[in-house]
């Protein structure tokens, strides 16, 4: 699908710098658990970076810190030059579960960000446009429980986009979908990314997804999470899932993950 030029609404993308961020939790039995240890990462404006690593390597913790939902034990993250001090509408977040509000229709879910910031009146038409963009315009009045998994994630995506985030954080957003829906959604997310030009940070368990979508792939070590390796994906877009270069990169990552001590690896679904 090609986005018509009039629907392009590029936002000023933001650079993200994570500098020496650590996060430890105290568990119920009193032991201290370090999820992230002096983690650093620079993401350029408009870049799409994937985070891959074994379960429990602190990927989700990192996203929550960048989203401002948690505060780091040490270190600091910045959006452009602004240090992150809490949640903000310029950073969108999308979870594995759609987490749509079940009491709101699709339209009201998508416009929630505008209602929350008192901007609904000025930007109401944009909600309709977003619903068309993610192909949910005929489901505007439906409630979340009436949607399929893929449709629910589209609605969640539109909801995250309504605030024009400069940085979109995706926490395994397609992990719960079947493979066909997932591949279609990967294309949709890419299309929106290209149309809007925002910076994106994607946490995934799926090596193919990371290669297919990202400019760079960050491999993380197991707990405490640290950067193991950063790989540049230099394949031209749109990418072929079965090109020799794609498969070569895939093999390399598998080997690296094996070298890293095994872990989540590629999922069949």
């Amino acid at each position, binding site marked *: 699908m090609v986005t018509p030029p009039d629907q392009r609404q590029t936002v000023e993308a933001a650079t993200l710098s994570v500098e020496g961020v650590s996060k430890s939790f105290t568990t119920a039995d009193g032991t201290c658990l370090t999820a992230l240890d002096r983690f650093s990462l620079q993401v350029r404006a408009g870049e799409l970076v994937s985070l891959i690593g074994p379960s429990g390597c602190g990927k989700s913790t990192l996203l*929550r810190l960048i989203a401002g939902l948690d505060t780091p034990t040490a270190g600091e993250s910045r959006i452009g030059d602004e240090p992150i001090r809490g949640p903000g*509408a310029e950073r969108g977040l999308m*979870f594995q579960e759609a*987490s749509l509000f*079940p*009491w709101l229709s699709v339209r009201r879910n998508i416009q929630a960000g505008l209602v*929350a910031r008192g901007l609904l009146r000025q930007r109401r038409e944009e909600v309709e446009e977003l619903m068309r963009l993610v192909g949910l315009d005929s489901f505007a009045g439906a409630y979340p429980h009436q949607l399929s998994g893929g449709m629910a994630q589209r609605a969640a995506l539109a*909801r995250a986009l*309504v605030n024009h985030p400069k940085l979109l954080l995706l926490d395994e957003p397609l992990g719960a979908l079947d493979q066909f829906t997932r591949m279609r959604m990967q294309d949709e997310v890419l299309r929106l990314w290209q149309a809007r030009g925002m910076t994106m940070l994607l946490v995934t368990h799926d090596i193919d997804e990371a290669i297919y979508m990202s400019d760079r792939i960050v491999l993380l070590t197991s707990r405490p999470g640290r950067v193991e390796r950063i790989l540049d994906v230099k394949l031209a877009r749109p990418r072929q899932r079965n090109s020799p270069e794609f498969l070569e990169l895939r093999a390399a990552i598998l080997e690296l993950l094996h070298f890293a001590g095994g872990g989540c690896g590629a999922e069949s679904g």
Partner: protein
Amino acid sequence: MSDAGQNPPSRPDRGEPAAAAPLGALAPSLAALVALLAHRFLPDAQVLPMSWTDTLTAWAHPYPATLEAALAIGLIGAGAQLLFPSLRPAAGHYGPLAAAAVLGTCVWDLATLKLAWLPLPYFPGPDMVLAGMIDDRTILLDSTYRSLRLLLSGYSVGVAAGLTSGLLMGWFRRVRYWGMPLLKVLGPIPATAFVPLAMILFSNAFLAGTALIGLAVWFPVTMLTTSGIANVPVSYFDVARTLGGGRGYLIFRVAVPAALPSVFVGLFMGLGASFLTLIVAETLGVKSGLGWYLKWQQGYAEYDKVYAALVIMAVFFSGLMSLLFKLRDWVLGWQKGLIRW
């Protein structure tokens, strides 16, 4: 099917076979006819006391007159569903229920007036009860109005207090820490146990009744609002915060709507508690209303009027319950299809 507007006919697993609809539509008329014939032609076995109904001609007695009206309405209904097919699902669904209700009064008539299985004065037949209702219509209407006024006053006070304290306790951990023990100690005491205290604290019986009913409603509403708010999934708040929602948005646009299903359970429990407290309060201290009327007629051993008051209470209370159900259906419409009501 769309005209039925009710859940049952629209559920495919309960749809009556097409042939049953005409029979169901005719059932109330048949039942009324049977009841009427039984009442007319079977000899009376209970020896009735003298009353104003003795001066009435046979056809003007309230019970047979009601049966005749039921017969007429039943026939009109059966005719209407023949003419308007859209009425058929509703007729097929409600017909058998209406017939059962009419047959129920017939059984009552047989067990009392006709066969005297149940003795007077404690078990009057439907004719006497209807006659009692007509005889005391002014005072019954007045009592119903006073009961309704007291109930609504107490229920609104209790709901307002319960929603407020439940919201505060659900949202603020510190309020929950101090409030929950108090709720757990005070809540389980039946509000009716506070009658002596209420009589001292309030000079006015209406205020005392309002306070008692309010207390009875406050407990379940607070309890379920608190737990509803405290159990809202954290992910909803995470989403709302990343969307730029402030505290007001988190409380009133996320916590409250997410807690509403639980709040409604509290509202239903509170309504049940309010009926109980209303009647006890009216019997014990408030000198008006249906509870007071019941007690008063019992004193005169006028059991036909006691039953009349019970019938009115049944209509009155179930009417209020249905109203709350309607409100729930409207407010929680998004749950339709998610859970089965």
